[in-house]
């Protein structure tokens, strides 16, 4: 056969084929092998402006202070309650008392008991009421 002319023949195909469904999965395989840059995940706190974070911090701190203070408010006892406690409940000696008083407070107390400030009538009245022998 000596008359073969390529251009006079129907176009001859190369005869190659790819496996079934080869191209369906090919794109996925290629994408997996690419050195794609990962999109950086920015933490939520970094996205907020600093002032927003600051305001939030102050707000939370204020709330915590309010609630904390509410919980720790102590009802102070009045003077009568203290006196009653010291008189009937507490096992407090004069020594203990003096330890908790300043020198000035003690001297003030002494002054209030200075004899010349107490009238003779008051002394007599006190002694008359008390069953005290003058020899004791």
């Amino acid at each position, binding site marked *: 056969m000596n*008359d073969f002319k390529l251009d006079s023949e129907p*176009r001859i*195909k190369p005869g*190659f084929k*790819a496996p079934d469904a080869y191209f369906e999965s*090919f*794109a996925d395989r290629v*994408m997996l092998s*690419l050195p794609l840059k990962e*999109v950086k995940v920015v933490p939520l706190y970094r996205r907020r402006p600093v002032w927003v974070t600051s305001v939030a911090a102050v707000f939370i701190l204020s709330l915590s202070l309010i609630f904390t203070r509410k919980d720790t408010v102590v009802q102070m006892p009045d003077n009568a309650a203290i006196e009653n406690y010291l008189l009937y409940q507490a096992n407090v000696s004069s020594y203990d008392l003096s330890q908790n008083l300043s020198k000035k407070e003690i001297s003030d107390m002494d002054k209030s008991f200075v004899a010349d400030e107490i009238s003779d009538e008051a002394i007599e009245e006190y002694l008359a009421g008390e069953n005290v022998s003058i020899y004791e």
Partner: protein
Amino acid sequence: MQDEKAFIALLLNPKTQETAFRQLVSQYSKPLYSHIRNIVLNHDDTDDVLQNTFIKVFQNLKNFKGESKLFSWIYRIATNEAITFISTKAKKANTTNEEVQQKALQNLQADEYFEGDAMQLKLQQAIAALPEKQQLVFKMKYFEDLKYEEISDILGTSVGALKASYHHAVKKIEDFVNSH
């Protein structure tokens, strides 16, 4: 494809890159498979070269200057990858590119992914006997039906030289078929 510049911008933008590149792979995988398969002949080798081609395209996108069309640039990378693949295989086997091609041709008859008849096989044998450049030009013109201008952009050879190569190739193939 949409405006090439806009598409390249999508390929370079990290936010749109993945979607755009997937689109590029979908569009080019079939024609590039044929182009590479015509050069390396074996399916598994074609699969390797095709994947490497897309990886190279992806890695070099930032260097694409737009001096040639994206199509020509991608085909040039694929052609270089295929030829480099054969050369590497030849070096590893301590043989020549031609011998590697001949061996691939011998395996073609047993290849489950070659469905050619006797005439198609004879044509492949005739092509394998051509010089490398003539093989390339013939395959791109005859099998892939690319225009001379496109082949010129891909191979960096003048249209006149390509026409001459093609006509030489056709003559040699006809002689081969007539004498075998």
